[in-house]
């Protein structure tokens, strides 16, 4: 599947295109097929995303999982600071990255 990610322009937070707007949670990421560049052009022009790009991901029971480790780290947070991740209470969340 193809999903879109980028950073929130004002905050820098990692965001994922959910089909309607932008979410902080990769679980919300929508499969955009071949429409990625088209969506990004609109969102970039509206300053709703900074540095957006399309990535490959696999579908899993827990939602989309980026194929490249860099995007998995982006989705989770620093693997060495679980307390700063989006799921600090989930001890298994970090294992999803590697």
């Amino acid at each position, binding site marked *: 599947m193809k999903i879109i990610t980028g950073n929130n322009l004002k905050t*820098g937070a990692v965001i994922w295109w959910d089909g309607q707007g932008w979410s902080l949670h990769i679980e919300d990421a929508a499969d955009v097929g071949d429409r990625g560049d088209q969506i990004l052009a609109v969102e970039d022009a509206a300053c709703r995303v900074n540095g957006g790009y399309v990535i490959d991901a696999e579908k899993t029971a827990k939602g989309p999982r980026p194929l490249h480790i860099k995007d998995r*780290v*982006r989705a989770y947070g620093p693997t060495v600071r679980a307390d700063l991740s989006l799921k600090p209470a989930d001890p298994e969340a970090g294992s999803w990255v590697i």
Partner: protein
Amino acid sequence: MYRYDNYDQAMIDARVAEFRDQTRRRIEGKLTDDQFKPLRLKNGLYLQLHAYMLRVAIPYGTLNSRQMHKLADIARKYDRSYGHITTRQNIQYNWIKLEEAPDLLAELATVEMHGIQTSGESIRNVSADQYAGAAADEIMDPRPWAELIRQMTNFMPEFSYLPRKFKIAVIASDQDRTALRWHDAAVKIVRNAAGETGFEVYAGGGMGRTPFLSFRIRDFLPAGQFFSYLQAILRVWNMHARRDNIHKQRMKILVHELGEEEFRRQVEEEFLHFETLGEDFPQAEYDRIAAYFAPPPFETGLSEEIDRSDPDFALWVDRQTVAHKAPGYAIVNISLKPIGGIPGDISADQMDIVADLAERYSFDDLRATHAQNLVLPHVRKSDLYAVWKALDEAGLGAANLDTVTDIIACPGLDYCSLANARSIPVAEKISERFAGRETELGELKIKISGCINACGHHHAGHIGILGVDRKGTENYQLLLGGSGAEDASAAKITGPGFDEAGVVDALEKATDVYLAQRQEGERFLDTYRRIGMEPFKEAIYA
């Protein structure tokens, strides 16, 4: 330490106002990302994996308690209550919001700090010996010269659009604590036979994709010609650098391609031009700057005795303190390398504690080191126990300077958008594996980079580790034999890489070879240099 005059402050304040306007225009969509990116980078604001990252310059690694308290305040108010000391003696914050960055920079400016020239194609923060003004082995304090460089190069139009970044180091002792020969240009302050002060000048060093050690371009440069010569070096590079190829833009490539003699000839020719103009820095300006670095009022008649009855304290004294030039004083190294911790990270609360210690025990003086530690440069020996107790209670009492657990590591793929592999988890695992073996293994400098840019100085590690991307998987190359000290050398790759667990095992095998083969008094590096790579390779790949 140097204090801004009205002119310095006005420039920094004006830059904050300018950046505030640029940020507003970016958020309103009046600037594109392509237009805004070079503007934010000129203020040290990067966009990393999780957020914007701000790198704050700590000129030649020197700061006072007021500045450190402000860095702590900023960590709490604008970040997630911690910062990271970098290998250029700077500090960086990992979770900055663009919309808050102008306010942050305005607060920094109130304590004479900023992020200017911590990024982009500029002359970066000038490195200096972290023991400057305190070291028993220095011939003078090198920081006035570093400050002079800062003042002569910040905002100077000729150096605003360099071909690539440019790094300078200044030292004044035979022992090199700055990785001098890994810099684009560097000076070592020396005295000639007539007792005159001058400089050994080095040019053409750098790490990254293509590592080169600098060469000595001048054996003795009179002090009064200091800046002209540096400017001549920069000008030759600026004129002839390979701007067509990002991998060939650093000055080290030009030096390599021209050859040392031709590069030197061109620099000397350019320098002659400066000599005919008769222009260099005004001596009065140097004197004005130097006055800020006058030694603090050291007490006399202090005892040299240290009560070593507490064995943990005695170990810490042996590892973390260094001889001071003033009787009765010691230089204290504060380890930011707790066992299993993240190298260089320091919490806001720890920053406040260290700032208080600097104010109370070290003439309000504090240093950051390129090895990602901190230094209290002037502590009475009679105060060492109190300092140690306070540090230990704050989680800063590790006794591991320059040992196997005092690891340099870049942020790596946990934070950095350029990285190919994570550095910090490898450092954590090595630290945990070797905890307690610091004395057995002696001086052993391990340096880890998460990509070929080498921010973790892997080329200069006695043992270096380079993280690479191998078909989407983290892979780690092991290197041996590097040094960033006065015996500088470039490490060599052992062979095929390893996964994360494998590289820690391989590193342990290398230390086993060292323990088996070392002769009396040899460090790991000495043994490697004596017996060569082969015995290590045989053990590692057996």
